[in-house]
């Protein structure tokens, strides 16, 4: 059940991120070509920046689901079991606590901003563009909770997330070039 929910959310977030990337790429390319032709869009900077913020928070939720945020697990893996598991619980609580605060404050800011519009496109309300903060925060919390059991199982076995990530990158490259799988040594990072 939990796996199905995670898979569905992953698919949804992937398509949101891809759609935002396509739009941002199209906006940047068209704006550059027009600028080189001597005609600039007044809304380009503001709209592109907002798209970047949306990619940031929807992409961050997806990265939380896949446990891809930059971290350092060397010290955590050096802690003996079962204290390592308790430390992981504390770390997760801190992360979720911060995003809960961010979502709450994001909502307060939206309520204060009311019906204000963007500078270059006044008909676009600021609450719409800044809605990414509370929505992104809630999504981050949900994604963290969904991926936590898998993460806990890995670190309990002493597997470094960095090693998992590296093996994934290499497997993708081998698939792309049609090569035979390597034996792998990233497990050197694995500790008991």
């Amino acid at each position, binding site marked *: 059940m939990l796996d199905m929910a995670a898979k569905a959310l992953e698919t949804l977030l992937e398509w949101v*991120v*891809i759609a*935002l*990337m*396509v739009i941002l*790429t199209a906006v*940047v*390319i068209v*704006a550059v070509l027009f600028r*080189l032709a001597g005609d600039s869009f007044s809304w380009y900077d503001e709209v*592109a920046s907002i798209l*970047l*913020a949306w*990619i*940031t928070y929807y*992409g*961050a939720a*997806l*990265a939380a689901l*896949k446990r*891809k*945020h*930059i*971290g*350092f*697990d*060397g*010290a955590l893996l050096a802690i003996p079991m079962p204290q390592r598991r308790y*430390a*992981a619980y*504390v*770390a997760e609580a*801190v*992360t979720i606590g*911060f*995003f809960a*605060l*961010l979502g709450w*404050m994001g909502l307060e*800011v939206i309520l204060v901003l009311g019906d204000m519009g963007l500078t270059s496109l006044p008909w676009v309300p600021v609450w719409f563009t800044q809605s990414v*903060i509370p929505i992104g925060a809630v999504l981050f919390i949900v994604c963290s909770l969904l991926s936590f059991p898998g993460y806990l199982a890995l670190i309990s076995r002493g597997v470094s997330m960095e*090693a998992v*990530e*590296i*093996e994934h*990158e*290499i497997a*993708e*490259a*081998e698939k*792309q*070039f049609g*090569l035979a799988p*390597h*034996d*792998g*040594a*990233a497990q*050197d*990072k694995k500790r008991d």
Partner: protein
Amino acid sequence: MEMLLLLVVTVLLICLNVPIAVALAVAGVAGILTFEGTNQLFDVALDMYGGATKFSLIAIPMFVLAGAIMNAGGVTDRLIAFVSALIGFVRGGLAMVNIGVSLFFAEISGSAVADVAALGSVLIPQMKKKGYKAPFAAAVTSSSASLAIIIPPSIPMILYATSSNTSVEQLFVAGFVPGLLGAAGLMGVAYMFARRYNLPTEEAFNTRRLRETFVDALPAFSLPVIILGGIFGGYVTATEAAGLAVLAAFAVGLWYRDIDFRHLHRAMLDGGMQTAVVMVLVAASVLMGGFLTRAQIPQDMAAAILEITDNKWVILFILNIFFLIVGCFLHSAAAIILVIPIVIPLVNAAGIDPIHFGLVVTLNLAIGQQTPPVASVLITACSVANARIWDVTKVNVYFVAVLLGVLLICTYVPAVPMFLVEYFYR
């Protein structure tokens, strides 16, 4: 006192494997709550949103996307064929090809781990088949991939420019000569090993073959032409060059007929996710940076160090040591975002050119990619080569020595990285 609190909170959370972005943001919140009160908590949402909307950072998703599209296309094989025809006749030819292709990959991807995974998967098995020892193959691949962050386009350089409020275009120009210098040095060390182990050459130099492989690889060269030519010539900004690079990468993929929906899907997703991971860090640094600035902490730190010495060469030496240590424990993006806002007032007060310093920082972090415990580039190469990290490190120490040599030259002979900047911009 404020600084000590922030430092303890940040280090403690990082040691618990809290994402570094969250550790930074929580430290910022702790600072706000302790010294400014709950009224300032609105800054959490405002800074985390404002930090993610920095226009100059739009270059990051564009360059990552261009690199991912190029990686997905058939560029790798064609580049290897061309570089092999160009320098494969030298003893240890495949090692030279490895370094030479890394130079080009640095142009198109900006991500050293992606370079190692893509290039290493193709070249390391070939090297082992031809009698190269696995640790040597891994060391060549790992050290040459670090050129990815020295030569433009470089995501750490974009982050540095934004964190220090300097010109990313000038920083790109400054990285060009040190990158070539580093590549020449790495080739020299590879040649030394090739003679010692009597490694084979690839094939005799043949002008016709060189011409044919060059023509075949020609569309791929459009990317460095657009990126470097556009920026060096002053026609486009870094962000605009990044947008055009995506367009060119897409055109090259279509030309080679190697790009399909699955590749594009993955390129877009990789680009989006890598961007998000870095941008959350940037946003969190804005939150903590806001508190630091209001508390005048970086300025106080700069004044304290300047009381001990105001000699800029001594300060550069201290900062080099500091960044080499930081590079052992933090990824380059995290190191820049975390440390630059704190040290930049000191750099400015000591009269160090921030562009020169940006290059020095980038070089330090390139070396940091080769030094455990956090050495994702080295670990990726070890994994592909199926070699133990310690065995690879024993060979890699010679290549790292070259990079350290380049760092020393660039630190104490600023003209090396800066003469092109002076020529184009000043």
